[in-house]
């Protein structure tokens, strides 16, 4: 049997737990508003963004944008606040998804318009913006 422990009650109040997070009041209000926004789109945050046949996650989109901007793995890692090996993992997954053999092919594919538009805005983002508008 896995370990289980008896926890004392009453449990701490939500107010006291919120206080301990030390989030500025203004940001708390913003977050509360976000939590109560009507859900117009059924799209979940972890669901993938569609690029034609491709399914790229938000993280992969961001990574691709940085690769297009010629950042090295180390620079990307610094920018995203992750380990360099994590960048490598994401990059290899991205290349697998796009069928790219290497970084250059990935960038060429992206810039050719298959993935991104000429101003660097991703097609899916633009479609989404149009839908919102």
């Amino acid at each position: 049997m896995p370990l289980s422990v008896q926890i004392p009650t009453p449990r701490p109040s939500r107010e006291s737990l919120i206080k301990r997070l030390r989030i500025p009041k203004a940001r708390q209000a913003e977050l509360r508003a976000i939590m109560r926004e009507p859900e117009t789109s059924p799209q979940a945050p972890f669901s993938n963004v569609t690029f034609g046949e491709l399914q790229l996650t938000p993280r992969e989109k961001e990574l691709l944008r940085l690769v297009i901007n010629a950042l090295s793995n180390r620079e990307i890692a610094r920018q995203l606040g992750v380990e360099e090996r994590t960048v490598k993992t994401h990059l290899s997954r991205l290349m697998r998804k796009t069928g790219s053999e290497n970084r250059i092919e990935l960038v060429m594919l992206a810039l050719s318009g298959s993935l991104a538009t000429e101003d660097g805005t991703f097609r899916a983002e633009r479609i989404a913006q149009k839908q919102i508008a």
Partner: protein
Amino acid sequence: MPLPPVDPNSVFLNIPYDEEFDKLYLAYIVGLYQLGFEPYLASEIPGGERRVDRVLALIQSCRYSIHDLSRVELSVTPPTTPRFNMPLELGLTITWAKLYPKRHTWFVWESSPYRLQKSMSDLNGTDPNIHYGSVEGILSELRNAFVFRDAPPVPQMLEAYGLVERKVGRILASAGTASLYSATVFKELCFAALDAADITKPKSSP
């Protein structure tokens, strides 16, 4: 040297920080807040000292710790390397808890039965909590691990989880980042989890 104070509701989360773990990470946050706990991550601790010192200090200040070893595996990119951070932090925790058993209780979580026996036979005799890599598994195991009267039922926890999950994209966008694991976003997810608990709680509950 005096021992650091321990918050009785603090839980150190020893988990992988990677995209494939996003949902389970969120499930831990939501589930722990539903049960009245405060999760802590190593990523929250400001820099300065060596990372291992900061991790140890965090373990020492937490009453509980959950060590999710489900992603202790080989990296995708060559050279294929095992991920040792989580077992290392578990080792530190076990030592600390052996020294001060009344101050710390640790749990090991896995995705499937018998995986732990294979990867870390030194822990034989420790039954891990098995979450089967699912959000429901995490929530239900949290409820099994931390027992108290009037704990919210799993469907209620799932409802709160669903609400937070649907808002993650908006929270990240408004924070101007893509990383769920940065210290700031972690705090904001904690806030969202608490707010979701409020929004989804049944009308009759206190």
